[in-house]
């Protein structure tokens, strides 16, 4: 990172009982969560989960039907010099295509009361110095994301709110963004970053707030979510039904898949191996299958047909 680590005062982001309705559609339903300084918090959920709407309400671009949002205890509109406190990246289309990149940042600096001298370091930080005089209309999506990020960092804010910032970035860009966000959080900033791809965020975030259909599903440290992901054993056996019965009697969760394949959820080689041996069951193949975070994410966000209470994870 081109910047030198130094302490920055982040601020707590709080969302309390937030509800947003568009006519008969409830986009956000009584959503509450807290984002702490010094950590990268992933705001995760599938498309249409209400992430962007929540961030827009948080930033006073949209109104809430009920509930409150605050940053450092204040509504966004009540924060003096907000661009110096909060940097936001909402979408990669907030540009006039005929305006040059540097002029875009100059415009932001003027309207935010930020020194023009901040522009060049930010262009360098996001790797756009060589393209600063080009019109934004000729930028790729990834370059626009970088420019948005430069704009968000202009005021050296303690809080960063980023909506799908990795959209359009190539793998190197995603790795760069990951390092940048980790670095910014390590400086003490509050970093709230939304994404619909948990796997992409897994190496970046400390905490997760997972929403689906506008409701909170999970909130807490990523490490506890990781510990919830369970392993399964995949067994190919001509005695599928007998093994299923034995596993069931042993308190495991067998799932027949195909003619001679059985998944045993929650089992490990150490628990299932002796069970097979002691019952003299013929086995052709025995494989451990770990449920990855993405599968858990899908499970958490797609099984929402019935209203279920959110999963509150233990405090750090």
């Amino acid at each position: 990172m081109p910047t030198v680590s130094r302490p920055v005062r982040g601020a707590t982001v709080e969302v309390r009982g937030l509800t947003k309705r568009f006519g008969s559609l409830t986009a956000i339903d009584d959503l509450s969560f807290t984002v702490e300084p010094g950590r990268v918090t992933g705001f995760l959920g599938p498309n249409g989960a209400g992430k962007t709407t929540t961030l827009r309400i948080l930033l006073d671009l949209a109104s809430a039907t009920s509930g409150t949002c605050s940053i450092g205890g204040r509504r966004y509109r009540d924060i003096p010099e907000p661009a110096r406190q909060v940097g936001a990246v909402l979408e990669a289309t907030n540009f006039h295509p005929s305006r040059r990149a540097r002029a875009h940042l100059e415009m932001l600096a003027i309207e935010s009361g930020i020194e023009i001298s901040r522009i060049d370091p930010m262009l360098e930080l996001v790797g756009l110095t060589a393209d600063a005089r080009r019109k934004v209309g000729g930028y790729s999506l990834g370059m626009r994301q970088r420019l948005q990020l430069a704009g968000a960092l202009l005021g050296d804010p303690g809080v960063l709110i980023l909506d799908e910032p990795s959209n359009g970035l190539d793998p190197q860009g995603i790795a760069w963004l990951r390092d940048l966000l980790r670095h910014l959080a390590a400086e003490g900033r509050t970093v709230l970053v939304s994404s619909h791809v948990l796997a992409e965020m897994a190496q970046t975030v400390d905490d997760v707030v997972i929403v689906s259909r506008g409701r909170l599903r999970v909130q807490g440290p990523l490490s506890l979510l990781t510990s919830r992901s369970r392993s399964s054993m995949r067994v190919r056996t001509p005695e599928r039904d007998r093994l299923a019965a034995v596993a069931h009697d042993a308190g495991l969760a067998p799932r027949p898949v195909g003619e001679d394949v059985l998944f045993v959820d929650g089992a490990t080689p150490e628990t299932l191996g002796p069970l097979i041996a002691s019952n003299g069951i013929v086995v052709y193949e025995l494989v451990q299958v770990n449920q990855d975070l993405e599968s858990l994410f899908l499970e958490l966000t797609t099984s929402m047909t019935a209203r279920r209470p959110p999963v509150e994870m233990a405090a750090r």
Partner: protein
Amino acid sequence: MTFTPRLVRAELFKFRTTPGAWVCVAVVLLLTGLGITTSFINGSNGVVHFSAPTTVVGLRRLMGAGYTAAIVMAPVVGVLSITTEYRHRVLTSTLLAHPRRADVLSAKVLASALWALFMGVASFAMIGAMGIPLLVAEGGSVAALLHQVGPVLPGMLAAYVLLAVYGMGIGTLVRNQIAGVIIALGLTLVLEPIVVAIFGSLAHMDVNFLPTRATEAIAGGVAARGPGGASAVTTAHVLLSWWLGAIALVIWGVGTAVVGYFTTFRRDIT
């Protein structure tokens, strides 16, 4: 609501760094050039000839050669100042920098007015650069023309400013850029003449408070039509006084902006 100088600076910077605002200046110069040319087309006894204007009316037409540019392009600049933000979603960045929307709108009003004033000054510079040499070449009196600066120039610049505010009000109400421009031009060039014809001439109703009629009033009655500007004095005679015309334009401009603020500008930015 407070006027925030840096927001006005930012809005003027936006004008400077987008081609639309400069296209408006170019069109103003073009229309002013056409206005200058037509003010030299005079007629007598059915014969049209190119000669220097000598009458008060003719000289006013030359000094007010930017009138058409004012009524066409000043509202368009106002429309562009707000609808460009919606079209390219720059409003999101603007409101993140300064979330108090009334302040943003007031800065846009002031910046649009200042850019329109710049267009008006450019128009008069064009008259100086093209109209005066032409007047001299045709044997006209520059001193006589300069006598018309007082009656025409302040009012014309005021017209640019107030029509830009009126256009910004339309843009705030409409939000869509193309629709805003079409509506602004349609109201000025199509609807108002129809309303004047139907309600003014036929029904004898007072149509002088309409935007272009009010503009004519503050611009010294320079909207004369036809060779020699024969109708100018007559037109001016029945128009509002300049200050009533100014009040009418302020009400049109601020009124549409206020209505736009309460009906559309406060809506969610999606």
